[in-house]
């Protein structure tokens, strides 16, 4: 699957079924979020979020990402401007982080 046509998204643009996610989709979703190229640093965070997100049934919060990856919040914002937790969750095909209940 290399485009978003067959992917179910909610009104906020989060994928509904995380099992539909592929690395190619992540590239497309990232471009939509204004990130043209996903570097290894970007991928380290996406991989962490995929792993913990699927294990816990919910996308990690900003604090969980910074604690879990050891990457500072400042650097997270540099990689994923505006809202890193939300942006990574979207690109990683997870739901909205539940910190935002």
């Amino acid at each position, binding site marked *: 699957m290399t485009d978003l046509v067959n992917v179910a998204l909610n009104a906020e643009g989060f994928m*509904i079924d995380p099992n539909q996610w592929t690395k190619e989709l992540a590239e497309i979703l990232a471009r939509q979020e204004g990130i043209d190229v996903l570097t290894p640093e970007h991928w380290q965070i996406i991989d962490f979020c995929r792993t913990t997100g699927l294990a816990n049934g919910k996308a990690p919060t900003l604090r969980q990402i910074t604690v879990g990856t050891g990457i500072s919040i*400042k650097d997270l914002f540099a990689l994923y401007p505006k*809202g890193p937790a939300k942006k990574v969750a979207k690109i990683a095909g997870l739901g909205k982080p539940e910190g935002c209940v």
Partner: protein
Amino acid sequence: MKTFLVLGAGTAGTMIARKMAAHLDAREWKVVLVDKDEKHYYQPGFLFLPFGMYRAQDVIQPKRKFIPEKVEFIISGIERIEPDASRVKLTNGRTITYDHMVVATGVDIHPEETEGMLDGGWRTNVFDFYTFEGATALGKFLEKWQGGRMVVNVVENPIKCPVAPLELLFLADWWFTKRGMRNKVELVYATPLSGAFTKPIAADALGAMLKRKNIHVEPDFNIGMVDAGSNVIRSWDEREIPYDLLVTVPTNMGAEVIGRSGMGDEMNFVAVDKHTLQSQKWENVWVMGDANNIPTSKAGAVIHFQQETVVKNLLAHIAGKPITHKFDGHASCYIESGFNKGVLIDFNYDQEPLPGKYPLPVVGPFTLLGETTINHWGKLAFKTLYWNMMLQGIEVPLPNDFSMAGKKPTSSKSPAPQF
């Protein structure tokens, strides 16, 4: 003699200790309740303190008043919880071994988690309102304030009562209007969320109310530091908001003893099954109220809806029967909106807040997601309900299970992700 131990005598701990003492055979069970503090705070009332609508006596009562005689109440801090050994060490030197334990140690604010928040301005022109001291100090400041820019900021989620910051702004708008100085005050809401609330339909409705009341929203604002020297808050992405008065909702974290005891996540919340509130790790540990990690609002109404499930499941578990009752994440919040009006929202894990009517015998119906006077009276009446019914073990006539009756489904804008 078996021991049923409850840690924390706030809303959840007080209610569950009373219920379990009533259900368990006193010849076989001893119910023990531990808290470090003698005072019980009616926390929803903190919102009204800054505007002189409530005073100390409205929001503080002695904890003992709500604890039945057959519950042993111990005033002490908790040194360490050892769930593998079913044992708790108190700071007063005593060690308690339990058969079952409910952890209800709540959350506290942590202003020290944000760089610069405790520098210079703290409780001078930077206030919290999630503590009695903070809300009272803010009230004293407001009495003398001549106006300027008032910024309300939520540092990070989750927080106790996600609508309280909005209520504070709505009340501030009303209060400054009443004092004839609204034109001298600029109201700003800086939030890490993308809008006024987390769920889309309520976010739209509440966002429209903020706009109507001329309250500016700065969305996706993740605060990095408070620069108390120049009265500016700065986000991680380098946006700056100057303030004359900063009202902050600092980082909310579970009790430190949870962290010390290795029972919590990175914010000291204890992982539980979200439908039963039983610990995922220790089958004789249950976690109620703000202390657990369930994805609901951290609020007293949620505790009210939780307790029936927990009591039934606890009794079943103690009797060696399977646990069958499930909590649906039901939350119900009166949102004070100023000018003697209020908004009601009612939702659960699966259903976001919708407009419509909330049917309630005798006093209702209440309007959902719309501003009415009766919702305001519902909010104020809740204080009486809390002190005289909820904490006294008298059934409050609120249905525990979430119901769609009266709600008007709009096109569901945000189905929950399916894992």
